[in-house]
């Protein structure tokens, strides 16, 4: 059973930095949005290697599915 992990760091002013692992593609941002209501409060999003890898895998899978049809 895969584990989803979010590490929240609350700085001295109450701002939050969140780092996720174990999520697939955009679902990490969705999970953070559910958790923190991100609309209008995010100052910076840095996508990790893991995010890009999973996005690439998903794209590859879509391409291969297209290739079959």
């Amino acid at each position, binding site marked *: *059973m*895969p*584990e*989803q*992990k*979010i*590490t*929240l*760091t*609350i*700085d*001295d*002013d*109450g701002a*939050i930095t969140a780092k996720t692992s*174990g999520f697939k593609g955009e679902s990490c941002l969705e999970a953070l949005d*559910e*958790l*923190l209501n991100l609309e209008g409060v995010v100052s910076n999003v840095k996508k990790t290697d893991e995010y890009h890898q999973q996005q690439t895998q998903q794209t590859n899978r879509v391409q291969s599915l297209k290739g079959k049809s």
Partner: protein
Amino acid sequence: MSAVIKTVTPFVIEEVLIEALLVVGAEPVKITPSNLQTVSHRGGLVVGDILTNRSDFYGPQHFRQNGDHWILRHDSSEMNGRVSSMLTGKHYSKVGRFLEEVGSAYESTYAKHLEKLAEQERIRLEEERKARVEATRQQAIAKAKSQGYSVKETTNSKGQIQLVLTRMV
């Protein structure tokens, strides 16, 4: 004829004035309903007046609030001017000299008063900041638990709160 005059420092803040009067050894006493009848003054006293240990023909010289500032009420001729004090070495000085001394003490006390206000403001902002961090922490923990995460709380090397949320999917 020409003249140059200098007015006294406007005494605006009661707390600062009382402190300044203490500094110059004027032993201020505030008139309250309970001590109003115990002090006599030919011109009359009212609740809120601030007595000094200086007296003249009319009775104790005192400060009374007049609009937004306090003024010293005294006999203009300073007849029978004296100091009634438990403090040693206190001699009567002319009203102008006394007001100069009080003005000088008022200015330095006012500077301390401003520092105190700044410190109170700093403390208030710090408390607000702490409350904001705590509210964020509690909100994050509550939301995480409601979404099935288990929460582990630690502190990082900078002393910041770190919440590690995990769940199996």
